[in-house]
C-alpha cells in the first residue's frame, strides 16, 4: 500500500519572523549599552517601567545548553562545587553557573542582576530560582505566589488567590517605583496587555489548526514562533501583525491540505520542552512519517484550552475576559492577567495537579502516541509525568518515556539510546522508516 503524500511548502511568513528576530537580537545588544536596570525574572508588567529589563534564566540557560555543551558543563561544575545538586533545574545550573564563573558563553562579563522578580510558577525550581542571584549579590527579591488547588471550585478561594496576586504585584510595582525612582507607565502596560491578548487569540487559532490532518505546522515551527510571541516588549504592533499573517497563512495551508510533513501517517504529542540540544529527534521521527503536533506546553501560547460543552476543543474564555470587561487601570490589567492563571485553567496546573488533563489534549488533536521526557533535574519538569503516561496508555495512546537531565542540560541524555528507543517504539507499532 502506498503512503499518502501531501504537498509541502515552506512557510512564507518565515521571512518576516527572521527579520523580527534579528531586530530583537539587536535590541538586546543595544540594551547592554543603555543604562537599564536588570531584573531576574519574567513579568509582563515590566514594560511599564522605562528603564527595566527582565531576563529569565530559562532561555539563557536553554541557549547555553544548546550552543555550547562545554561551557554548560563548566557552569554546572562551578555550581556543583558550591553545593548544587544534580536534581537542580539545568537552566539554573547553566545560568547561575555562569554567574559564579563571572563570564558568559562568549567570554564577556556576566551581567549581574539588580533585583529579582521571579515568575511565580507551580514549579519549585521556579520559586527557588531567584535564590542564587539574591544570595550571591545581596539584591532585593520579590517572590510572588502561584496558587492552585484541586477539588471542587470555590469562588471565594479563587477570588482571594487572584486578589493576592494582584495586590502583591501592586506592592512590587510600588516598591520598585519607590526604590529606583522610576515612574510606572500605566498606559503602556494596559496597551501591552491588550496586544498580548490579540497575539494570544491568533496563536490559539494557529494551535487549533494543528487538529487538521495533515498538520500545517510541526512542533518545531511552533517553537520558533513561540519565542516571538513574548516579544511584545520590543515592537508590539509588529508582533501582532506577524501573528495575524501566520494565522492567515496557516488557515490557507489547512484549506489546501499543505502539510508540514508530507508523509504524515502518525501523530504524536509530547510533554514539556524537548531537549533543546537534541531537536534532531523530531527529524528522526519524520522518517517514519510521524509528526509532532505540539504539547500542552507549546500550545500555552494560545492560552488555556478545554473541551467545550458541545464537545469541541477551544481556548477557555478568561475569567476576567478582556472583551467583557474593559481595562482602564493598572489593577484591571493585572486582574485580567492573573484571572487567566486561576486554578485548573493553565497548562502548568494541569501538569502539576491534573495529570489526566493531557488525555483531553491527546484526544482533541487525534494523537496516536506521546513521547515524554523524564528529567532528573528540575522537579517541575517531571512531576506527574509518569502519571500522565499511565493515563494516556489507559485511553490507548502509546507512550514512550525517555530520560535525561533537563532540556538545557545534556549530562544524562543518552542520544544513541533515545534514537534506538524511537526505532523500537515505532517498529513495535508496525511502522517502518520510509526514508533513510
Amino acid at each position: 500500500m502506498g503512503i499518502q503524500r501531501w504537498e509541502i511548502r515552506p512557510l512564507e511568513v518565515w521571512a518576516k519572523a527572521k527579520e523580527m528576530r534579528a531586530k530583537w537580537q539587536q535590541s538586546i545588544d543595544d540594551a547592554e549599552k543603555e543604562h537599564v536596570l536588570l531584573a531576574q525574572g519574567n513579568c509582563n508588567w515590566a514594560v511599564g517601567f522605562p528603564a527595566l529589563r527582565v531576563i529569565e534564566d530559562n532561555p539563557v540557560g536553554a541557549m547555553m545548553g544548546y550552543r555550547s555543551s562545554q561551557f554548560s558543563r563548566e557552569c554546572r561544575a562551578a555550581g556543583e562545587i558550591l553545593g548544587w545538586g544534580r536534581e537542580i533545574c539545568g537552566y539554573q545550573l547553566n545560568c547561575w553557573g555562569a554567574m559564579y564563573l563571572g563570564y558568559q558563553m562568549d567570554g564577556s562579563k556576566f551581567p549581574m542582576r539588580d533585583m529579582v522578580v521571579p515568575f511565580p510558577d507551580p514549579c519549585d525550581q521556579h520559586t527557588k530560582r531567584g535564590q542564587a542571584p539574591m544570595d550571591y549579590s545581596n539584591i532585593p527579591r520579590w517572590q510572588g505566589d502561584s496558587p492552585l488547588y484541586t477539588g471542587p471550585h470555590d469562588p471565594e478561594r479563587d477570588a482571594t488567590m487572584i486578589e493576592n496576586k494582584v495586590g502583591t504585584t501592586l506592592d512590587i510595582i510600588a516598591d520598585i517605583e519607590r526604590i529606583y525612582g522610576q515612574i510606572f507607565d500605566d498606559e503602556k502596560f494596559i496597551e501591552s496587555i491588550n496586544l498580548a491578548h490579540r497575539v494570544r487569540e491568533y496563536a490559539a487559532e494557529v494551535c487549533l489548526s494543528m487538529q487538521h490532518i495533515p498538520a500545517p505546522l510541526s512542533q518545531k515551527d511552533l517553537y520558533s514562533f513561540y519565542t516571538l510571541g513574548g516579544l511584545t516588549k520590543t515592537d508590539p504592533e509588529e508582533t501582532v501583525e506577524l501573528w495575524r499573517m501566520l494565522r492567515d497563512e496557516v488557515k490557507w495551508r489547512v484549506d489546501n491540505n499543505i502539510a508540514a510533513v508530507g508523509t504524515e501517517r502518525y501523530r504524536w504529542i509530547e510533554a514539556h520542552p524537548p531537549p533543546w540540544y537534541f531537536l534532531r529527534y523530531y527529524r528522526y521521527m519524520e522518517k517514519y512519517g510521524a509528526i509532532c503536533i505540539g504539547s500542552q506546553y507549546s500550545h500555552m501560547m494560545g492560552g488555556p484550552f478545554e473541551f467545550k460543552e458541545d464537545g469541541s476543543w477551544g481556548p477557555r474564555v478568561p475569567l476576567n475576559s478582556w472583551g467583557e470587561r474593559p481595562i482602564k487601570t493598572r489593577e484591571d490589567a493585572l486582574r485580567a492577567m492573573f484571572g487567566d492563571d486561576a486554578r485548573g485553567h493553565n497548562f502548568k496546573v494541569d501538569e502539576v495537579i491534573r495529570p489526566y488533563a493531557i488525555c483531553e489534549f491527546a484526544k482533541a488533536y487525534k494523537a496516536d502516541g506521546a513521547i515524554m521526557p523524564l528529567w532528573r533535574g528540575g522537579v517541575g519538569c517531571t512531576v506527574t509525568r509518569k502519571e500522565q503516561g499511565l493515563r494516556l496508555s489507559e485511553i490507548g495512546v502509546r507512550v514512550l518515556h525517555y530520560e535525561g537531565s533537563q532540556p538545557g542540560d545534556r549530562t544524562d541524555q543518552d542520544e544513541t539510546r533515545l534514537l534506538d528507543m524511537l526505532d523500537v517504539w515505532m517498529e513495535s507499532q508496525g511502522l517502518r522508516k520510509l526514508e533513510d
Partner: protein
Amino acid sequence: MITAGIDVGIENIKVVVLRDGTVIASGTARSGGAGRGKAIEQTWTDTLKAAGISATDITKVVATGQGKGDVPFANDSITEPLADARVALFLYPAARSVVDVGADQIRVVSLDEHGAITEVVLNQKCAAGIGTFLRTVARRLGYTLDEMSRIGGSSDNRVVVNDACCVFAELDAINLLHDGVAWQDIARAIHRAMAVRINSVLSDKVRPAKDTTVLIGGVARNPTLIAALEERSGINFMIPDQPEFAGALGAALDAAA
C-alpha cells in the same frame, strides 16, 4: 527453507540457524568492543560449520539486538521487541507478554490475542546493567554465574541490599562482605534486590499476566533470580531451554516468515 537469526547484544552475540521450524545449529561469543565485527564473522562461520551448511544455503539472514547494524551479511534487521514477540508466539502460542532480561536492558512486550504488540516498556536507566552486574559480582566473589546462582539459592538468610540500582546494591554487598556476612546470604540478597528492580519494570504500564508470560534473555538462565522474581511478581514464567538464544531465534523466525 533455511534461515538464520543473529542477535548482537551488548555482551553476547548469538546465532541461530533454522530449517523449517527446527533449530539446526546455534553459536555464541562475547560481543566485546571494537573487535565486535570480527567476533560476529567468527561466530557466524563457526555456527555454519556446525550446521554443516554454507552461507549460500541460507535464504535469509535477519539481525536483531542493540548491535543489529553491525551485521554486514544480514538481509534485514528487526528491532528487539519484534524478535521477542516472534519467538514467544512460536514457542508458546498462548503467550501474552514477553520479558527479556539481558546484560544491559530489560524489555517487556505485551501482545494482544492476535499476537500484535500493544505495548513495549523499556527499563529506566537506573535499572540498566543487571545482567552484567550479576556476572561481575559473581566474578568478584570468585564464582561462575552458575555457582553464584546455586549458592544464592541455598541461603535462607534475610539480609538485604539496596534495590534502587546495581551500584547501590553493590555498595551494600561489599559492606556486608566486610561485615563477615556469609557469601551465600549476600548472593541471595543480591538476587532478590535485582528481582525487585526487574519487577519494577514489569509493573510499569501493563502488568504481564500470571500464566502467559515468557521470560527470555541470558538472565533467564539464572534459577535463583527467576525464583526471586516469580516470588516477587507472582508470575509463573514460561522459560525456553536456551533463553539467551531466544532473540536470535526470533530473528530467524522472522526471516522465515
